């Protein structure tokens, strides 16, 4: 997953990405931005033109918060606590 995806999200900037690999998971239209079929230059061009002609779309898009190290680490501890609590059930 390109870091620019996370950087854009952290900065509150919508994304226009191809539907390739992790990019497709990063943007769930219309949340976060828009996707175009990988390799489809015309589709990318059309969407860019549409956004240029109707920039209000950029303002309206909902940007989910960027994942943070703090949240990641808190979840990590939760998972460890969960498996340690279940240790007695470890076959």
């Amino acid at each position, binding site marked *: 997953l390109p870091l620019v995806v996370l950087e854009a999200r952290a900065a509150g900037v919508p994304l226009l990405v191809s539907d390739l690999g992790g990019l497709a998971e990063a943007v769930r239209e219309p949340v976060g931005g828009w996707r175009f079929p990988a390799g489809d230059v015309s589709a990318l061009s059309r969407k860019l033109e549409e956004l240029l002609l109707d920039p209000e779309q950029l303002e309206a898009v909902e940007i989910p918060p960027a994942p943070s190290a703090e949240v990641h680490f808190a979840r990590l501890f939760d998972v460890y606590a969960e498996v*340690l609590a279940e240790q007695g059930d470890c076959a």
Partner: protein
Amino acid sequence: VKVLLVVHGFPPELLGGTELVVATDAEALVRAGCEVVVVTGTLAGAEDGVVRSVRTEESGVRVHTLARGDMHSDHWQKSRSGRISAAFEEVLTEERPDVVHVHHWTRLSRDLVLTATRKRIPAVVTLHDHFTTCLVTSRVSTDGAAACDVPLPQLCRALTSSDALGQRERSALALS
């Protein structure tokens, strides 16, 4: 709590995303009061068998490196290594962690969770990529042009179309 993190490579030798997540987690866990041990693979394969080495980072994280000489990541049937499993079990016996966290098992062996479980040590797995179902890890076509559309559990297109793999390997994969 003593945490043992497993990853295919570790800084300074390897600096990819997964490796950096593990390095960052390791330091953060130490700061949070945990004892942290890392088991890592390496690109420096042992010529014969498995070579173990251990070092201690400034942070206090102990890093066990397992070098596997027979590693061939393009051969699915070699993703399990009995020698690595045995070496990993030795580390578990020595370190006695409370929890094992497997971040990646390429360059190591696919049965690390099973090995930990047999020693009654709970294991956590983070799936950083699609390696469990795709040897090129991304489920993106080999020319990079499209998402792989081969539905699981069918064989990976990259494998079935590769000239590098002979009929024998394909047959072995079909049976696995």
